[in-house]
């Protein structure tokens, strides 16, 4: 790929990434939002993060398939416990990595 083609590619990628990040802020931050919208938006974070977590833990391979019991999903149990107990992102990431590392050695 030519250097100019590559530059056009990443500029294109940058634009289509930036616009969805910017548009809601631009449109919504300047006005009062209706109650129902605020309530609906309030549900979005739990929904997105859960969709990301479940697909990380329970899917594997390409083409992807369901794998309910794996080192990833088993390590999630103690990791979840640490997250709920400490409420600390740092400790959860560090202990999650440690538990997964051990789980992979054992399994």
């Amino acid at each position: 790929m030519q250097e100019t083609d590559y530059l056009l590619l990443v500029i294109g990628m940058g634009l289509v990434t930036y616009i969805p990040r910017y548009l809601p802020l631009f449109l919504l931050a300047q006005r009062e939002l209706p109650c129902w919208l605020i309530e609906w938006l309030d549900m979005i974070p739990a929904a997105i993060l859960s969709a990301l977590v479940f697909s990380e833990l329970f899917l594997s391979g390409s083409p992807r398939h369901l794998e309910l019991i794996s080192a990833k999903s088993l390590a999630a149990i103690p990791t979840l416990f640490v997250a709920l107990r400490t409420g600390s992102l740092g400790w959860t990431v560090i202990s999650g990595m440690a538990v997964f590392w051990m789980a992979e050695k054992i399994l």
Partner: protein
Amino acid sequence: MNRFDLILRGIKAAWPICIGYLPLGFAFGVLAQKAGLDLLDIALMSVLVYAGSSQFIAVAMLSSAAAPLSIILTTFIVNLRHFLMSSSLAVYLHGESRRFLSLFAYGVTDESFAINLVRFREGGWDRYQALAVNQLTNFTWIGSTILGRFAGQFVLAGSYGIDYALSAMFLCLLTFQLRGRIYLLTAIISGAAAVAISLVVSGNSFVIMASLLGATAGFALKRYARRRRGLCAGN
């Protein structure tokens, strides 16, 4: 508190995300190099796009000589979820200037979004702290992808549980959101939907579909349970 103290609090909130980004950025740098991207290419993509998973996908598509337009379209679909995140954050950035918003928007990622939203909800979180979180994680990402270009080949893929950093990060960020039964229910619906949809639909659009479905189901359940109108809850 002066601006310096505010930014310091931003650093305290951002470091765990930075730890999570380091191995990912490293991995990206290694893969990008193997796909034939040089240092400038890698830096350009990390600066202009700044969205981890879509960058991995783009590199994979580049190595299989995919058409640029299809790479851009895929990037768009994968990153469309940020639309929902910015919408949630907009509630707390009411009345900010366009200039601030355009800078802030650049740094909205899965992780910075989750951290900032929790802090905004708790109160006492200021726009400069939020921006500091966005920018620090941004610099870490860019820096680590560049480092990965050089040092990545010495780090064995999959060592020390590095592969699990992202999963653990998402798990913890999710627990921050579970502030009641209704949120737990929303999460379960959305998560189950994500797995189900992803098995049927190829690509990464299942995250958006499942999130919309889960959030709408949760919203409907909440409304049904309360049966009261005109009250803004959850703020």
